[in-house]
């Protein structure tokens, strides 16, 4: 993808789906990389004490998958200039997270495209909803 996409992309175009398998190791790696050591993500007894049935997948890990889906779709040089995400459902590890997206707006004047992105859990629940604006350098 490149800035030429602005000449041809249409509203409703679907992004290529990405799928991520999440286990305890995934959560530990993300905790180490992000600095988010909230115990609900790796201490099962504590997670249950806090009201969860299992280890909670970091919301920002799911958000990162979605933002990366947008960035990679945009291709080299594309920048995600705005990103907004809501966590509408909890995912518990182990989990298979499917990331999907579609084009919602095209603005050739400003060189931007708007996207709607979301994650689906193993049982097809939508657990994360996001929007992103991508811009290509002129």
């Amino acid at each position: 993808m490149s800035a030429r996409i602005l000449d041809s992309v249409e509203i409703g175009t679907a992004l290529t789906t990405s799928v991520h398998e999440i286990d305890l190791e995934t959560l530990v790696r993300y905790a180490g990389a992000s600095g988010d050591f909230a115990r609900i993500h790796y201490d099962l007894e504590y997670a249950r004490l806090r009201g969860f049935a299992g280890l909670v997948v970091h919301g920002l890990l799911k958000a990162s998958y979605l933002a990366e889906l947008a960035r990679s779709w945009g291709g080299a040089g594309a920048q995600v200039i705005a990103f907004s995400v809501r966590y509408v459902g909890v995912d518990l590890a182990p989990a298979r997270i499917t990331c999907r997206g579609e084009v919602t707006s095209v603005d050739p004047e400003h060189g931007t495209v708007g996207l709607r992105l979301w994650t689906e859990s193993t049982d097809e629940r939508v657990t994360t909803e996001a929007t992103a604006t991508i811009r290509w350098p002129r």
Partner: protein
Amino acid sequence: MSALPLDEIKARLRLGEVAGEFEYRVEANDLARFRAAIDAPLGPDDDPELAPPTYFALLDPMERGDLASDAFVYELPFPMTGGGNAFNEVEYDRPIRVGDVLTVTTRFTEVYEKQGRQGTLLFRVRENEIRDASGERVAKTRLGHVLSFEIAS
């Protein structure tokens, strides 16, 4: 009528005031480790010095545990039934890069309550302004956190 002591929570969070100011340096190793953790390998045309779009999360003093001014909410006298991040928003003026020395200024801006499936929900919203060493704004973020409580009616 609010079930939670919202006025007390707002006062203790000093709503609207600067809750803290922190300085973080963006290191190449941290970027690489973050990319690996979020399953985002570099492509042949990708710039390895540009941070992924959600790197702003690593610059949030609350997520890093550097700002603990809301620890008291975990000691409220109600059973907790869940909680976590509610939403995150970021607007970039420019990408974050390796070598950036960033100053993050945090303010709590909203505190409110809602009734949800898991009980009484307490939302706390904070905003971060991220500036580089020359004082230019790099990004602004808005982050919402929710805790749910079981409160007898």
